[in-house]
Structure formats: C-alpha cells, structure tokens
C-alpha cells in the first residue's frame, strides 16, 4: 500500500471519528464541561486570594501565577477521557475486527485516530485557556509574539498528547481494564509534555518569549517521535495474532 | 551522625531484597511441582 493509500485511510478514519463526535457530542457536552469544572476546582483547591510577591510592590494571585501549568493539567485529564472515548467506540460491537478485516493500513488508522483526538483536544485547550484567563484574572500585556507562542505551544502539546495517547490506547485496546490501565501507562509518558508546555506557556504569559521557543521545539520533537513510533508499531499492535 | 537515617536505609534495602528472594524461591518451588521433570531444564 502506497503513501496515497495511507493518507486516504487516515482521512477515512479521521472523518469517521469526527462524524461520530458530531452526532454523539461526547467531547462537546461531557469532556469540555469536565475540563471547565477542573479549572473551577483549582480555584477551590488553591485559595483565590493567595498572592505571590513579584517585587517590592507588585504581586499576583497564586492562581494566575500557576495558570500555565493548570491549563495543561486540565487538558491532560480531559485527554484521558477523550482517549477513552476514542477507543471506546472501537471496542464495542467488534468494530476493531471490522477495521482489521477491511485491510486498512494500520499506520493510516493510527494517523486518523490521532488526528481526530488532536482536533478535539485543540478545541478543549482553546476553551480551557480562555476559561483560565477569565476565571483566574490573568493580567498579561498581550503582544502578537506572545499569542503566537501560546498557540504554537497548544498545537504542539496536543499533537504530542494525541499521538502518544493513541499509541497507548491501542496497547490497552481489547482489555477489560482499559479505562484504568491507560491513565497509568500514559501519565508518566506525558509528564515531559506537561513540563514543556507549562514552561512554554509560562514564557508566553509572564516571561521572555524567547525562553519559550526551545520548549516548543522539545514538544514538537516529542510529537514527532510519537507519530513515528505510532506509525511503525501500529501494525503489530492491531494484529492480534 | 545521621545513623538514624543510615540504619533504616540499609534495613529497607537488604530487607526488601531478602524478602524478594524468599518469595521468589517459594514461587519457583511451587511452580516447579507443576512442571514435569523432563521439561524443567532450559538448556535442551
């Protein structure tokens, strides 16, 4: 199967997963509110009145200060739900057998599913980021370079999360304990993403923009590694014999 | 100085290793009874 076949298969799976989302709206009406609720819980857990001193005069609320990290923690937890959904639709009623029988390129299936998860996560990230700015009253002096850094960070991070998550979702596919096993497998793997995205977003919001780009590079590298590993290993992962 | 950290540390390390060894040998003995004599050796 050539490259055209791979991309065609990926597009087929991608469209199918988004169409399922369009009619079931699981991510829109369940995962998204969950993500927003997580933000509100951060407000409950971390006192909204606590402040950190920035100098002799200036201070900022703790919540605003840690916003970069909180955004991606909320995105990470939401990703676990989105991944559970992505493999949930494949585990019911023998559809995974159906995909095997169709002889679709496994790498195409991986790319299609990862891309669909990525699009959904990007949507969640956008809402979470906006919500965090509103709820935590983040006061940022906006500039185009900061915005570009933040958007790129979100893009690279969600791509990495989607690629690694899809790989690990397939590793646990067909297991009765999938829902509990995937978080155990994926969270340590995604720890560097949380770390890098947090640093990059911190640079975008409060620090020097230039400090953020190396982290975005690391996130992109992570995403690239996992897209590669997924493409290479999906064939033997889907093959159950 | 600091022996109150050193002693528990060594106890934990060698205690865990010893416990693991005992459990491992117990499991091997239990398992060996379920494997016929002629199939135990790895090098055939």
């Amino acid at each position, binding site marked *: 199967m050539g490259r055209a076949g791979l991309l065609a298969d990926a597009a087929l799976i991608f469209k199918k997963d988004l169409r399922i989302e369009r009619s079931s709206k699981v991510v829109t009406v369940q995962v998204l509110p969950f993500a927003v609720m997580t933000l509100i819980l951060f407000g409950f857990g971390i006192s909204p009145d606590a402040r950190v001193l920035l100098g002799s005069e200036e201070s900022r609320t703790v919540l605003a200060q840690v916003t970069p990290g909180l955004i991606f923690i909320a995105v990470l937890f939401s990703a676990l739900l989105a991944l559970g959904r992505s493999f949930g639709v494949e585990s019911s009623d023998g559809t995974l057998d159906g995909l095997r029988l169709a002889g679709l390129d496994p790498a195409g299936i991986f790319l299609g599913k990862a891309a669909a998860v990525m699009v959904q996560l990007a949507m969640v990230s956008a809402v979470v980021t906006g919500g965090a700015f509103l709820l935590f009253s983040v006061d940022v002096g906006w500039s185009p370079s900061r915005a570009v850094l933040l958007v790129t960070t979100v893009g690279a991070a969600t791509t990495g999360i989607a690629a690694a998550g899809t790989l690990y979702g397939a590793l646990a596919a067909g297991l009765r304990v999938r829902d509990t096993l995937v978080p155990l*497998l994926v969270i340590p793997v995604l720890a560097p993403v949380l770390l890098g995205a947090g640093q990059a977003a911190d640079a975008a919001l409060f620090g020097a923009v230039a400090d953020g780009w190396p982290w975005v590079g690391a996130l992109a590298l992570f995403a690239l590694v996992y897209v590669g590993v997924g493409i290479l290993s999906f064939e033997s992962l889907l093959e159950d014999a | 100085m600091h022996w109150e950290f050193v002693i528990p*540390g060594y106890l934990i390390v060698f205690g*865990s290793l010893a416990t693991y060894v005992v459990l*491992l*040998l117990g*499991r091997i003995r239990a398992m060996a009874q*379920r494997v016929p004599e002629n199939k135990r050796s790895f090098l055939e």
Partner: protein
Amino acid sequence: MSALTNTLVGPSSSKVSRVVGIMAIIATVFMLLLALVWSPPEIDQADAVRLFYVHVPSAVIALYVAFTITLIGSIQYLRKRSVFWDLLAHASTEIGVLFCALVLVTGMLWGKPTWGVYWQWDPRLTSTTVTFVLYTGYLAIRRMDLDPAVRSKRAAILGIVSFANLIIVRYSVEWWRSIHQSATFGLDTQLDDLMLFTVFWAVVTFLLIFTWLLIHRFRLAWFEHQASTSSLDDAIAARRAERSHPPLAGESV
C-alpha cells in the same frame, strides 16, 4: 543445614547460580563492612554518605542495567519471537522496578539529613520516580488476561517505547530543573580513595545480586511458561473429549 540447603537450592539450583549466589553473599558481607564500618564519614554529610553505597548501585542496576536488558529482550523478541528474550525482558523489568523503588527510598533518606527535606525536586529523583511508574505500567500489561503471544508482543513494544520515554523524561526533567535552580543540591561530595573503592565494590556486589535474582526470576518465568505450554496438548485432548457422542455412521442432521 541440609534442610536449609534444600530450601535454598531445591528445584531451582544450577551450578552457575549457586556460584553466583555464594559470591553475592560473600561480596555483600564485605560490602557491609566497607560501607558501615571501615569507610570514614564524609566531611559535610557525615555518616549519611553511607546511604550512597546502596543508593548509587541501586540506581546503576535499575536505570542502566535492568531496563537496558528489558530493551534488548524486547527488541530481540520482536525480531525472533523467541520465548527466551521475552521471559528475560519480563524478569529484568520486575527486578529493575524493585531496585528503582530502593533508589527512591534511599534517595529520600539521604535527602532528609543533607537537604533538610525528604523530597527535593532534584532532577534525578524526579525522573527516577517517573521511570518507576513507567515500568510499573509494563508489569501491569504483563499481568493482563490476554492471549500469551499478544501479551508478549504488546509488552515488547512497551519495553522499547518505555526506554525511549526514560531518556525523554530524563533529559526534559534535567533541563527543566536547570532553569530554576542553578545550584545543585548534591553538594560537592568529597570522596577519598576508600570511599571510591566502597562505591565500586558496592556496584560489583549489587551486580552479583542482580545476576542471581535475574537467573532465578527467569527460571520462575520459564517454569510458568513450561507449565502453560505443557498443558496445551492436554487442553486439546480435553477439548476433543467434550464431544458428547461419537459420530454414528449415516447420521444425518
């Protein structure tokens, strides 16, 4: 004594493992004397430095030896589909996770007198923790109720990817910490010759212990494998016996 020997050796003895075992015991006694009696306290850390002599070798075993064997075993299993490499990878990971836990415990015990707190966001301690969870996931996959061949294959893929993760986690955590704290928390440890020799000897001792454990853990895995395959013929016979009645000539349905 013979009862003890029997328990220790029993069905799991072999000439090699017995020699390794005896060497490991002798080395351990010598190492304990070196580490706790003969070697002097360090200038800054005083006797806390003695925790190094178990912390460092545990880290060497877990992070450099055990998980590397997991990686090699996983690659070889995917290439050759040989049971040997699969079982070796499993055995090595389990022992690696054990040593990983020991690294964390000894690291924290060393941290309290040295840093004043049990937990510092020290790059090595942090990345070791993530690695520990990473390989716990590998062991969880090995425990799944799956077709053995499928399980081995998934575990092998996980074994390879986990090693890549180990490296990614390691570097990202180090980079992350290097931005925030320029000062290292390790203090400048002053080791004299005897102390260096003690560290060296402890590493040798732990390698012997690891080898002995690996041989025996592999043997257990091998027995488990043999027990499950020896039953395949029986299982087929039992399955065939489920037929309620023998076929009758000219029987129609």
